[in-house]
């Protein structure tokens, strides 16, 4: 493949990944690394480096649009970023001495887990929860524009959410992804934050988390300009397109599309990791 065809093909795939990542609050990275390694035969370390950079673009590019809608909770994001950035730094250092087969295996498990989580039947969003003393003291509670007007919510189980966020950060640093699935899980399930708030706040946080491991990746030579360029530009264009349709799209169908793609890619990565085909 010449550099021109490679660049165009990677840019198109990245556009689709960015679109999907933005719609599901996952960031493009989670599907990008498997796509690059499986279909483009890119070494997983280059794929992780390019993905990490694109994750920053996805998050920052889309956050600007979400902020206008008033969904994301900046205090909540900042507070949880303490956990995610420390975790990301740790994960990035781990990534430099763990064998690539092990990274691929962890990646596969992470994808399968994400698919499972997304298909699990979610209890209907609990409304009017009592305020949690810790969340109140940290001023994490907020409100957002819902279909039937302004809606306020009380954040629950802060320590559990904070710990999950540390794990999300470590996975982000290790795999070069935004770990949107774990972030959304921590906010959705543990902290009982409304889905749209958790998705957009997660998207908002992903860039900062990725920046925490980007320094390590850059200095270790994981970021190749020839690969990162089509990935970053493609993902950015895709995520900006995705952020335009978030408000209208149905949560249910989004999760179905997302989980099917993730499931297939997860199985492939697991196969590659376990059989050493990476």
């Amino acid at each position, binding site marked *: *493949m010449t550099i021109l065809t490679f660049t165009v093909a990677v840019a198109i795939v990245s556009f689709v990944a960015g679109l999907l990542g933005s719609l599901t609050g996952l960031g493009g990275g989670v599907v990008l690394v498997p796509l690059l390694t499986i279909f483009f035969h890119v070494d997983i370390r280059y794929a992780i480096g390019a993905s990490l950079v694109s994750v*920053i673009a996805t998050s*920052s590019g889309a956050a600007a649009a979400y902020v206008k*809608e008033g969904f994301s909770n900046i205090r909540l994001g900042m507070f949880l970023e303490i956990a995610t950035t420390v975790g990301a730094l740790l994960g990035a250092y781990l990534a430099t001495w763990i064998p690539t087969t092990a990274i691929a295996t962890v990646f596969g498990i992470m994808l399968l887990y994400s698919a499972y989580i997304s298909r699990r039947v979610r209890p209907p969003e609990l409304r009017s929860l009592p305020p949690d003393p810790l969340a109140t003291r940290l001023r994490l509670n907020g409100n957002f524009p819902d279909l039937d007007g302004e809606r306020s919510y009380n954040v629950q189980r802060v320590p559990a959410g904070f710990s999950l966020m540390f794990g999300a950060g470590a996975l982000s640093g290790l795999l070069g992804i935004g770990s949107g699935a774990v972030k959304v899980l921590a906010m959705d399930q543990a902290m009982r934050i409304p889905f749209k708030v958790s998705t957009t706040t997660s998207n908002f946080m992903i860039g*900062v988390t990725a920046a925490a491991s980007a320094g390590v990746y850059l*200095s270790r030579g994981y970021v*190749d300009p020839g690969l990162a360029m089509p990935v970053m530009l493609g993902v950015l264009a895709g995520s900006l397109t995705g952020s*335009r349709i978030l408000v209208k799209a149905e949560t249910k169908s989004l999760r179905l599309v997302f989980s099917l793609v993730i499931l297939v890619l997860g199985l492939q990565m697991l196969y590659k990791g376990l059989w050493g085909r990476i």
Partner: protein
Amino acid sequence: MTEGKISPPQRGSAQANPSKPWGDYQIEVIVGYLLRYGVMISATIVFCGACIYLFRHAHEPADYRIFRGEPSDFRTIPGVLQSARHGHGRGWIQLGLLFLVATPIARVAFAVVGFALERDRMYVTFTLIVLSVLLYSLIGSGTF
């Protein structure tokens, strides 16, 4: 861009705290613009680099099967700056990517200022912790 199409721009926490001159919503909007412009500038630099790179190397074979690690030109900030100054396409791409990495860091730095203007000591502390981790990552790992 999307503003004003789906919902009026004044929706959101602004309505909830109209009395606060420096509320969360104002911070979020400014931070949002900061992020957007940061990304747009870096994308433009990357795109310019891409044009030079593709113009010169379009028909060479692409191979990323074997990991070699980037040369120091693309691993350190002085190296990237020098490569870009010499007009190398990949140097420009890498410069754009460095700019992109700096964007969320600037965002956190701005949030420190925002919370300070709000006189929110707790959140100034939180954002300073995040900022130090980010700077440690860059400096501690030898990019600078």
